[in-house]
């Protein structure tokens, strides 16, 4: 964008318009039962409250089936705000939804594609079964997977932001590898590995030889001393199940 023209050569330029892109989490709604939505949303936020606090989100109404398109949009926005999120925009709504959005000073964002809605088979009637699914913001889908082929030495720290991390060498004791998504170590993991660093509880850690000092997924961690001897030195995967770290041989 070119710089705005100055009215008067003596005045100093105070503004500049630039283009930038941001990756934002999208809250997809599959039904209009506000109470249920509220419940499910609370539960999800509880799992990683830091992630959701002050996080800008976009509400996506496109998955709503025909019968649930009558939705209390203002109510949904309230729910989100109460839980600490910052709804900044909406997409996939009809004229009525757009009207509500404007009234709430929220942006109306581009639809992904109208084909998307048509392709969805109409959901079976029972409103009681209408679910509100929270699309877990996939930090790992944001950027390309980071690949490291050299050994990661003691004292070095690697953070794969918004992506998975793959290491095809060993990770020394005293080294720290962090990823917002999954971590794969095709070598010996001796240092610290922290996956799902921004709260993605579906992240996993895979390694060829577990000798880690500490492993963590979305904040849940376990130190070497508490690791069972039966999984030491083996190819394993680590994942979260009900807030507990599970370590299983591959």
């Amino acid at each position, binding site marked *: 964008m070119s710089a705005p023209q100055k009215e008067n050569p003596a005045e100093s330029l105070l503004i500049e318009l630039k283009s930038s892109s941001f990756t934002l989490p999208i809250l997809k709604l599959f039904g209009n039962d506000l109470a249920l939505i509220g419940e499910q949303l609370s539960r999800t936020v509880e799992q990683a409250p830091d992630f959701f606090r002050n996080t800008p989100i976009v509400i996506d109404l496109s998955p709503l089936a025909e019968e649930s398109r009558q939705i209390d949009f203002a109510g949904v926005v309230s729910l989100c705000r109460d839980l600490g999120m910052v709804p900044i925009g909406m997409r996939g709504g009809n004229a009525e939804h757009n009207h509500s959005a404007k009234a709430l000073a929220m942006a109306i964002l581009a639809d992904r594609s109208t084909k998307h809605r048509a392709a969805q088979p109409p959901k079976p009637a029972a409103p009681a079964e209408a679910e509100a699914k929270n699309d877990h913001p996939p930090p790992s889908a944001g950027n390309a997977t980071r690949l490291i082929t*050299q*050994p990661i*030495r*003691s004292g070095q720290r690697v953070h794969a932001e918004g992506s998975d991390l793959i290491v095809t060498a*060993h990770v*020394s*004791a*005293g080294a720290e590898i962090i990823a917002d998504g999954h971590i794969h170590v095709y070598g010996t993991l001796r240092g610290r590995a922290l996956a799902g660093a921004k709260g993605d509880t579906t992240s996993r850690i895979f390694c060829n030889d577990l000798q880690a000092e500490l492993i963590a997924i979305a904040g849940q961690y376990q130190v070497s001393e508490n690791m069972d001897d039966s999984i030491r030195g083996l190819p394993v995967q680590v994942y979260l199940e009900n807030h507990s770290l599970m370590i299983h041989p591959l």
Partner: protein
Amino acid sequence: MARTIVVTSGKGGVGKTTTSAAIAMGLARKGHRTVVIDFDVGLRNLDLVMGCERRVVYDLVNVIQGEANIRQALIRDKRCEELYVLPASQTRDKEALSKEGIGEILDQLSGDFEYVVCDSPAGIEKGATLAMYYADDAFVVTNPEVSSVRDSDRMLGILASKSRRAESNEEPIKEYLLLNRYSPKRVKVGEMLSVEDVQEILSLDLLGVIPESKTVLNSSNAGIPIILDEKSDAGQAYVDVVARYLGEDVPHRFINDKKGLLGRLFGG
């Protein structure tokens, strides 16, 4: 254009100065004009191990600060005319060193010497980082015990990221593992890390294994680089190291216990 070798480790007391003196003497004896520089400002001991402590007039810091030119500070070894020593200062501290100052000195030396051996101090602070900044090759001296291996690993990380070559995206420093104070007997009974154990953790090319030897202490007391003691096993191991570094294919002689006839007959 001189080849700059840094002898470093991270951990203290593993044998950097002993190695620097031995390697420098070894290269010089093969006819390559070599200078060995002590970067341990304030705790200098390269001059002791080289036996020239009574001839030190000017040192590295004097040269950096322009108080003497490099020719005045260099001390020629009495035993080998191709070997020179640039001692560190004993009275100043490492704040006197600077990247630019060292760079200039190395530039000057480059014209006259084939090899510049930099004896690094222990640690990962200024003295150590300056010693390795301009290096082309790094001899990482490691003892076969856990803390030394961990510190060497840390140093390798620094070599890979904080050297001039790393910063200007040139070919990285060539790293060599020198396993020092190795005792095959203790490895056998599981008290000491083996060569394989260390290589597994560090993933480095093995330049040489120097056996634990009583002769090293005697030599440094006398101010003689160990490589000059032809009867010493450690000295011989350094001879092999120099040969290997210069490209010869030399088998490793000191990894396994030397068995006498009886030992071979009756095993164990």
